[in-house]
């Protein structure tokens, strides 16, 4: 119990340290200028201008429509006249071209200049800052919630929150650290600030999963042992109450003094009520408890390990080994992830890999190396999908090998005989066994028959 608690504390402490550290890094990487809300008034001023512009534009449209209608009326008798009221046709054409020609931007040059466009940037930053202010408490409180509840969903929310904050900060370019991931070499990639930050956040998520393992699996098992030990103690020390005994005796006395039919009917009613309506449980509980007590005593007498089996003492997870394996396993895993990420993000390195002594390149794709596509995200996508599929394939092959399907038939027959002839078995024979699949059984039986022949 103490060990399991220490494991849970260990992972919680690791999570807290990483959480505070990564939270601090995320916050410190955001440019404080992002939260300059004095620009709000400026933005509002421009918004008012935009509204004014829209109103006047609507007025202009209305004017155009009115003019078209009016000029249309007047123009009908004079077909071929290019004049449409007060607006020249070429003006309308120019307006349409200005609106729909992307080369000119979405608005005509004359209406907005770069200085005015800056306000759009300010608006974006303002919206980004607002989003970050919403996301920050979500990220922090989810992290704290995870520590309390152990629910991995909360850790995922926290991870997503921090990542969204980073993405918003990058998009609005209000991030103080360099956003470029230097993929020229593996160390330079690892040392890229944005890579380190993103990776640290992922590490936090992995630690959260590991913490969840201790909180949701090891702790409940320890609690189960404690709970069952308490039940066992209560059963062992149970003494029927006087009230329960008196009630039972009284019922027997009254049964003797009354006629049998009435007695039987009351007894049956009592039984029905107890079973169906769960009434009058005191006496029944007392009886059940006494019966369970004697049953347990008998079991304990026949097998002294009964109580430890009930409490699943032998099945308690070994938490010390968990902590011991945690650091190397995680380091290995993370290193593998970083290495493969590097190969995906900088495929030149992977394509230039050589077998050291023979000086032979593993991948011979010179055309690809010279290709412009190599630096494109599409190539990364193809590379990552291939890598994922290769890992899945390796997994399937390893599973096939470890399942023992490739073991020789004789080995299996020998194992079968070993199982059948178990001289050490002192305990009663199991009533049901689940071992290899039925098809394998049949196969082995057939082989045994062949052997006999």
């Amino acid at each position, binding site marked *: 119990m103490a060990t399991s608690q220490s494991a849970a504390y260990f992972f919680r402490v690791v999570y807290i340290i990483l959480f505070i550290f990564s939270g601090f890094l995320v916050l410190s990487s955001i440019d404080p200028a992002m939260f300059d809300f004095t620009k709000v008034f400026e933005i509002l001023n421009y918004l008012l201008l935009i509204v004014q512009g829209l109103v006047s534009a609507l007025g202009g449209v209305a004017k155009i429509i009115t003019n078209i209608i009016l000029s249309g009326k007047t123009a009908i008798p004079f077909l071929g006249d290019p004049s449409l009221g007060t607006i020249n046709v070429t003006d309308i054409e120019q307006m349409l071209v200005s609106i729909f020609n992307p080369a*000119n*931007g979405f608005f005509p040059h004359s209406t907005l200049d*770069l200085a*005015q466009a*800056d306000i*759009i*940037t300010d608006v*974006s930053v303002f919206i980004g800052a607002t989003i970050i202010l919403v996301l920050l408490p979500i990220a922090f409180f989810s992290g704290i919630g995870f520590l309390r509840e152990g629910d991995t969903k909360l850790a995922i929310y926290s991870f997503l929150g921090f990542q969204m904050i980073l*993405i918003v900060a*990058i*998009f609005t*370019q209000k991030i103080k650290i360099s*956003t*470029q*991931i230097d993929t020229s070499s593996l160390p330079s990639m690892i040392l890229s600030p944005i890579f380190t930050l993103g990776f640290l956040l992922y590490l936090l998520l992995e630690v959260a*999963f590991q913490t969840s*393992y201790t909180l949701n699996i090891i702790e409940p098992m320890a609690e189960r042992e404690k709970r*069952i030990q308490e039940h066992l103690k209560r059963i062992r020390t149970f003494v029927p109450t006087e009230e329960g005994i008196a009630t039972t005796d009284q019922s*027997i006395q009254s049964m003797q003094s009354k006629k*049998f*039919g009435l007695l*039987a*009917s009351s007894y*049956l009613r009592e*039984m*029905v009520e107890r*079973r*169906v309506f769960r009434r009058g449980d005191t006496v029944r509980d007392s009886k*059940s408890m006494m*019966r*369970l007590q004697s*049953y347990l005593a008998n*079991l304990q007498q026949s097998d002294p390990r009964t109580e430890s*089996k*009930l409490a*699943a003492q*032998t099945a308690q*997870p070994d938490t010390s080994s968990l902590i011991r394996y945690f650091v190397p*396993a995680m380091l290995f895993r993370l290193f*593998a*992830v970083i290495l*493969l*990420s590097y190969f*995906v*993000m900088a495929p030149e390195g992977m394509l230039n890999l050589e077998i050291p002594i023979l000086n032979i390149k593993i991948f011979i794709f010179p055309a690809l190396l010279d290709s412009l596509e190599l630096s494109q*995200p599409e190539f*990364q996508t193809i590379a*990552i999908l291939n890598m*994922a599929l290769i890992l899945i394939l*390796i*997994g399937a092959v*390893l599973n096939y090998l*470890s*399942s023992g399907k490739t073991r020789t038939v004789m080995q299996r027959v020998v194992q079968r005989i070993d199982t059948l002839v178990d001289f050490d078995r002192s305990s009663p*024979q199991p*009533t*049901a*066994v*689940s071992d*290899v699949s039925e098809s394998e059984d049949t196969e082995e039986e057939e082989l045994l028959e062949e052997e006999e022949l």
Partner: protein
Amino acid sequence: MLSSRGAFIAIGGILLLSIGLSAKGIGTVTTMVPILFSGEGLIQQSTNQTAGLPEGMEFLEAFEILNSSPIVDYSMFLGTLLILASVIGLPFFRASANASLIRVTRLVDREKAFAGEYVHVTVRVENTGRKRIDFLEIYDAIPDMFEIVLGENFIITQLAGHETKEFSYIVQVSTRGVYQIGPVKVIIHDRLGFYFEEDVRHFYTEVLCYPSYEDIRRMEALSKRRQQGKMFGAHKTRQKGMGDDFHALARYYPGAPFKSLDWKAFSRTGELMVREFEAEKNIRIVLFLDHSGSMGAGIPYNTKLDFAIRSVMLVMKMAEERQDLFGLLTYADRPTSYLPPGGSKSMFHQLLEILALVEPEGRSDPLAAVDYVMQRLPRASFYVFLTDLESSDSEIFTEAAKRARSTKNRITVISPFGPLFEAKLTDLSTTERAIAEAIFEEYLGYRKQVEDSLRGLGVEIINVGPDDILPNVIKTYMKGKQVGKGSV
């Protein structure tokens, strides 16, 4: 296989890759706004970087500016990280986690138990492989009728190579029947919960549950104070005969043995009197238990059949104590099991097994049941039917009674009355009560018809409810014994 958590991470990665690919050409706010509104930003940036490029190739640099936007880079990086993180451990997991290498055995301390008794189930889990399993879940399924009173029927643990762990739990069997413990579900996870492998082992342990012994235990407790004249305890027939116990004095009749003459009474009364003794005769009783579908009606675990079974057990126990011959035939649309009349103690276990397996099914054919018994038991016996008379026509029952009576068998029918087992009238609403009363009348009318047809054959029908079925069964047995129905 990826778990929901692993799938979430992988899908998150794919989503981020998609965002990265979609964001290609969008850039950041500071690059996008001038481009959107004037196109000048892009032109200016590209002009700065296209110096030296051949004429007409400037667009390449322009695209490069947009491709290398930080949003694209970060999304691609994060997407790659998440996808790799979700699959990197898969080969290690698949190599170590192989559910077929987990051997599970189950051991029960008893395979037969009375309802209400406890069964201790031990589950042993062994990792026959060499690799350590960090996260193993084992669930041992139990039938709904079982209630776990101590321990738990699952375990979540780690298992090193060739390691064995055990856990156990105690269940209380609530009602009679044959139950199967199993199957066992084996689930292996990795420590991060990204992958899992699941296997369901369809191996079962059968537990035969006899009807509750509670009634018999109670009766035994009470019969410790057995007294003559009370319902419990030994009872003798009141038949005159050649027993040892004095019954009464009677006037001498020609042919009476001289040794029975009571000379003291002769001297006292001046009349020849003979002593009569009680015969110590036993009876042969055969219970016909109808387990047709309609007998299964009633409150769960307290159906007509459940009460009938309890009655059979009580009568059996009483008959055993009184050294009467007791037989049982269970039947529905055909005889399903038959226990010829006998008095050995081993019969009780056979009876329990029969009763444990009885299930309500099909229609009722009492004629086939009577024929079956009569072919195997030619001697006159006391036939007691436990039937609700609802799954067969009255004509069939009349015919069965006729045949039974033809060989001087005595018949009593104890009939659980359906509506009394369904619900209490007081618990029903006014409308429901009206409907229930109508049904009640209908049933009663039918019974009246059956009673009328059987009256001429000397068959007694006793309608019973859950409150009085047991006393009536016992009373019928005692009365039959007193009268000497089916005397051996």
